[in-house]
């Protein structure tokens, strides 16, 4: 499959990427390309220009202090999965990164690319929302609660680039997903985190965009255990139905994955 014609440009720095974007009429940023390139091959996207930001060194890093972990938007999934700092401070985040796609995809795909694309079944949005992360861009800082707007839609403006994401270090965190047996994308994935600001539960794969479950959050505030979620159901009204799973089945999976995520979080302690 061959995409429509476009002009390729490689940015050497963030400033360079912004300048190239300003000079162009219709450009898209290319990070890892593991979603954008297949989309272009199917001719569902046809930007006139691609600005490759994958070689920008200042976007690829992991920095830690006692309270938080900052990860550059250009950091590849494999680098997050193998980072000693991520494994030590938020092991659930490293484990999540290790379940994205396959090894070859993890050598290319990036944290920022996943968030900017906001695929309804992507993994990183669940961790970002559950940990209450902050997304720093070339223009501002966006809190996770305000970042994910809807299916493939975020608060990012045209030409705005994610620089890094700061994840608060969690006291407890776990991720559980039920992958589609063929595509391996999450039919339902739940990230549970207890940080200084409380317990948050975020769901991916089940609805049009990642979302939180306040009722489960308050139950886990009282008692952080899988049993605290027994009998807690998830309304199926706004969930996705497709050939892979009905909304009712996804609702059931969300409740099961939430209990497994809590168990995974506790397992580590």
């Amino acid at each position, binding site marked *: *499959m061959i995409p429509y*014609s*476009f002009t390729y440009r490689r940015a050497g720095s963030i400033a360079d990427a912004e300048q190239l974007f300003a000079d162009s009429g219709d450009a898209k940023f290319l990070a890892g390309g593991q979603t954008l390139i297949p989309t272009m*091959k199917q001719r569902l996207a046809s930007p006139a220009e691609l600005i*490759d930001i994958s070689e920008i060194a200042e976007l690829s890093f992991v920095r830690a202090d006692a309270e938080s972990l900052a990860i550059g938007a250009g950091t590849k999934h494999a680098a997050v999965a193998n980072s000693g700092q991520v494994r030590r401070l938020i092991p659930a985040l490293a484990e999540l990164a290790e379940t994205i796609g*396959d*090894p*070859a995809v993890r050598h290319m795909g990036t944290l920022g690319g996943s968030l900017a694309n906001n695929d309804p079944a992507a993994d990183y949005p669940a961790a970002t929302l559950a940990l209450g992360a902050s997304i720093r861009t070339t223009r501002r800082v966006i809190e996770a609660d305000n970042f994910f707007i809807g299916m493939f839609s975020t608060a990012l403006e045209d030409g705005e680039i994610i620089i890094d994401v700061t994840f608060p270090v969690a006291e407890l965190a776990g991720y559980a997903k039920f992958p589609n047996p063929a595509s391996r994308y999450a039919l339902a994935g739940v990230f549970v985190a207890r940080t200084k600001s409380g317990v948050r539960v975020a769901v991916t794969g089940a609805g049009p965009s990642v979302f939180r479950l306040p009722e489960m959050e308050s139950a886990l505030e009282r008692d952080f255990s899988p049993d605290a979620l027994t009998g807690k159901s998830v309304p199926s009204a706004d969930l996705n139905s497709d050939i892979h799973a009905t909304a009712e089945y996804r609702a059931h999976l969300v409740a099961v994955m939430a209990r497994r995520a809590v168990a995974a979080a506790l397992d580590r302690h």
Partner: protein
Amino acid sequence: MAVLSMTVNSKPVSAEAEDRTLLVYFLREQLQLTGTHIGCDTSQCGACVVHVNGQAVKSCTMFAAQAQDAQVTTIEGLAKDGKLHPVQEAFREHHGLQCGFCTPGMIMTAVDMIRRKPALDRPAIRAELEGNICRCTGYHNIVSAIEAAAKRMAGAAP
């Protein structure tokens, strides 16, 4: 159109290509390196896996322009001085193929996983093969071949 330059199988190469040219087409059509296969063309089957700067990637999901100045290794670059790479040798010994279509990608993925994870057991090998599909379903011998190669290569290392 632009002239792309990269190092493929330790040789510098330059060829003209449209910006939209995928790396797999650049390798197969411009450079005539047809060992890298196009299977699904949708990033799922892994028949097109090559190494770019030492890491396994799906060459159907990368533009050739992204590999400008990079070091690329394809299946044709594994054998040295007429001697098969230990992973190729192990696939031959263990009959790690049936029709052979997926084999180049399987071997490039195997070399990459052995580099990253020298201690590989069978479940780990199967997990690492997540992005490679053998439509003959010949996984059993593929896993045996990779297991044997990993052991041999660990033994050979100082």
